[in-house]
């Protein structure tokens, strides 16, 4: 294959914005987007709420400065303040650009882009398109990329970077339709593969494929990951699937109730009750469950989100989607019965360590979106800031790669390297001594993480979790792919995704064990307070001789001094 100037791995919001911007920056470049699903299927489509930008359409006194402050405070001061500056300053431009190319934003009475309030924000600055914001943004970007003639390699599963003496030469990927390993020699590669919260499996709101593939590929190629221990939990996931019941249900007056029929939020947030901040409500639910005041079922412990007192009328008119979801995924009609819920892993703050331009430590390798960690979210991201992150930094990474591609030689990938990869994959299919089933391992991985590296963490539990992870990795060596066909081998793909999750889970657990403080989403029972002296630092995880090596990196300040985070 002819070498590409830029190969973008991932067709979500970050990847598509990068592609569009790179084409704009230099239309003569040869750009490819690889995606394991059709780009419009990417998980960006799941974002309902919206994207933050201080347009000041709704609140005339909103400013970029306020957005910056809210973001830094929300991050529990772990975000890099210069990166946050870029995020918030670019926001209005990005939202307008999306408008200019066709995103169907909802509108205010004066026909400007509509904005609504969102958690942790001092002004209503979340721009939305009904409850399908991510979906419509993704569609718009896909449409524009088709218009610009971006080369799409859909249903290509990326496997590894080809690296020689620390020089990146390109990428290896499997064409799902044929099962063939194909080489993509490239001058630059941008990872935009989304988050890794699916490692918590059915305790996660994420799509099945949010398995952190890009992070794992980069990590194995020696590129450092940052702040992996920070995983955000959303309070109300459905019991069986982990799928999200949005805040709207509590906003409209839903109750959280334990098995004793008690509205337990009275204990934790007597004033705000069910409407307390996300992390607090998640911790409260988890405490109820841990102290045995939850319900029990074969699908795990849970509590009730009770809407029955709101009446059929209100539920049907204002919460139709929540009703549909709980009927579809729990078989429960919230008009008649309470919805079984528990906290669900929702967003990964950590990711591939990049600078403010999307560059990683390896020449020619960039990252953007949820798979990267710039960091703008620090220890906790605000609702509506993630879509913004993927758009702003997707664009910047696309621009930077387009400008810098000329600096690098096109790589060459040898047939031997392709053959070796092919043999590696085929070894999963051999029968002698291989018997472990992917489903069981994956289930156990999710359980171990939720139990030991979940909302509440402490040294003894995390250590137990790490031991269990090592065992799971041992067992993975005996895993068997039962489907031996070349065409669309989803069985093989799932096994490779599991491998990625196992590698990354170690970095999450190691980071969680090392960080002896509580900050943002990371709560240690044995270290319940924030310790700025020792831990106002980013965690850096690198692969060293097969194990995680941890390091640190300072947080860039410059705008706001450390303060206690209270709401």
């Amino acid at each position, binding site marked *: 294959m002819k070498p590409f100037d830029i190969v973008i791995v991932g067709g979500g919001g970050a990847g598509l914005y990068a592609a569009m911007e790179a084409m704009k920056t230099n239309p003569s470049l040869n750009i490819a987007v690889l995606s394991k699903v059709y780009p*419009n299927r990417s998980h960006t489509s799941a974002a309902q709420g919206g994207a933050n930008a201080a347009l000041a359409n709704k609140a005339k006194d909103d400013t970029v400065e306020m957005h910056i402050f809210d973001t830094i405070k929300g991050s529990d001061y772990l975000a890099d303040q210069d990166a946050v500056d870029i995020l918030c300053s670019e926001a209005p431009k990005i939202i307008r650009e999306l408008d*200019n*190319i066709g995103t169907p934003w909802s509108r205010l009475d004066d026909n400007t882009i509509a904005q609504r309030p969102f958690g942790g924000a001092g002004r209503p600055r979340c721009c939305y398109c009904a409850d399908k914001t991510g979906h419509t943004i993704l569609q718009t970007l896909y*449409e*524009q990329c088709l218009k610009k003639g971006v080369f799409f390699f859909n249903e290509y599963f990326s496997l590894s970077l080809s690296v020689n003496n620390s020089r990146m030469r390109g990428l290896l990927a499997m064409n799902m339709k044929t099962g063939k390993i194909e080489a993509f020699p490239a001058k630059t590669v941008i990872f935009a593969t989304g988050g890794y919260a699916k490692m918590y499996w059915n305790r996660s709101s994420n799509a*099945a494929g949010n398995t952190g593939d890009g992070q794992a590929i980069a990590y194995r190629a020696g590129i450092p990951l940052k702040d992996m221990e920070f995983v955000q939990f959303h309070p109300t996931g459905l019991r069986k699937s982990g799928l999200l019941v949005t805040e709207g249900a509590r906003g409209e007056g839903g109750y959280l109730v334990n098995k004793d029929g008690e509205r337990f939020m009275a204990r934790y947030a007597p004033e705000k009750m069910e409407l307390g901040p996300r992390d607090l409500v998640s911790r409260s639910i988890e405490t109820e469950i841990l102290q045995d005041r939850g319900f029990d079922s074969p699908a795990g412990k849970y509590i009730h989100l009770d809407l029955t007192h709101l009446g059929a009328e209100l539920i049907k008119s204002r919460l139709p989607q929540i009703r549909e979801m709980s009927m579809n995924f729990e078989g429960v009609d919230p008009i008649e019965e309470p919805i079984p819920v528990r906290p669900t892993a929702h967003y990964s703050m950590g990711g591939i360590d990049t600078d403010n331009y999307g560059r990683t430590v390896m020449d020619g390798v960039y990252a953007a979106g949820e798979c990267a960690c710039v960091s703008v979210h620090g220890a906790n991201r605000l609702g509506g800031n993630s879509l913004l992150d993927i758009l702003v930094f997707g664009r910047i990474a696309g621009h930077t790669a387009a400008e810098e591609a000329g600096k690098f030689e096109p790589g060459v990938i040898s047939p031997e390297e392709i053959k070796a990869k092919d043999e590696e994959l085929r070894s999963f299919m051999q029968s002698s001594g291989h018997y472990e089933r992917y489903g069981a391992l994956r289930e156990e991985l999710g359980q171990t993480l939720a139990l030991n590296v979940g909302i509440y963490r402490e040294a003894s539990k995390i250590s137990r979790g790490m031991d269990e992870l090592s065992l799971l990795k041992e067992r993975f060596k005996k895993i068997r792919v*039962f*489907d031996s066909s070349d*065409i*669309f081998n989803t069985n093989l793909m799932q096994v490779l995704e599991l491998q990625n999750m196992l590698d990354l889970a170690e970095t999450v657990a190691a980071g969680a064990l090392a960080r002896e403080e509580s900050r943002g989403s990371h709560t240690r029972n044995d270290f319940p307070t924030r310790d700025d002296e020792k831990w106002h630092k980013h965690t850096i995880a690198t692969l060293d001789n097969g194990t995680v090596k941890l390091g640190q990196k300072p947080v860039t300040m410059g705008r706001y001094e450390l303060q206690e985070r209270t709401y």
Partner: protein
Amino acid sequence: MHMTGAAEQHKEEKRDITFRVFRFNPQVDIKPYFDDYTIPVERGITVLRALNYIKEHVDPTVSFRAFCQAGICGSCGMRVNGISKLACTTQVWEELDRCKEPGILKVEPLRNMPPIKDLIVDMDPLVDKMKHYMNWIDSSMPESEMGKKEFLVSEDEFLKYDKATDCILCASCVSECTILRAHKEYVSPAVLLKSYRMNVDSRDTIHDTRLAELVKDHGVWDCTHCYRCQETCVKSIPIMDAIHGIRENALEVRGTKDTSGAKHAEAFMDDIAKKGKLVEATLPFRTNGVLWTVKNLLPMAVKMIMKRRTPPPPPMVKPSKGIKAFREEFREMTEHVKDDQQSHNK
């Protein structure tokens, strides 16, 4: 009511259900076949979860697509008991009433798209059509000016395309489209919907080019107006409004001056009228029957003719029974149109 006690609350109804799954791996199979998997299913489980269970516990080679598992991404379109829908939002228990053989759920791939393996079909032809019909906004804002200011868009305009932007490209409607079964080149309902959405957007500048493409062969005039797509749509989008919208627009823009669209429709109708076969092959099997069709659709069709001096698409009809009556009605109707057009041309 929360005191009912834990035990009672979690009693799950459970039963054994058989999934009859379409299997085809072109690498080894000469032709497709079905595999039966009988598994325990509790109330509240979706078809997708049942398939996942089969893949994890019974047969890891069963292949299908799924991603969000929440009805948002459009990956898991397939036919369940003969109807195209999303596996991830379809309750197994609700399907039980629709089984032809009691307790056996039939699961097959979408139609009208090239098969790849088992329940997986090729989406590329659909993407190619999106490209062909320019399913994007070609903005009136020059690239150098972008990001500087927003367009003002009225609520009225927003509402015109709001529903259309719900489309998740799951291709369920494509799978059920009656014309596509006969003509693979046909634009297809999802692409018509998207084209319409672009055409009513004031930010776009290539409305005319897109429309010109839509009125050509395999375009909007080929639609038989059978409503299958709209009835199937997993997001309940009124696709027919979009199709009507494009047609009305085409007639407004070129109608009386340039009747190529109308002529095309006429030729198509002729074809159907003469070769009743085409009707039988392309019109859907409808439970409504010919009486309903005549009563409900022909008057509207004739009204359309009078208004626009163009033949409407043939209405739906149950192919086996009543085809003669339909042809009779149809002939009469076309006469009307011809008279009408002649008088107009004078």
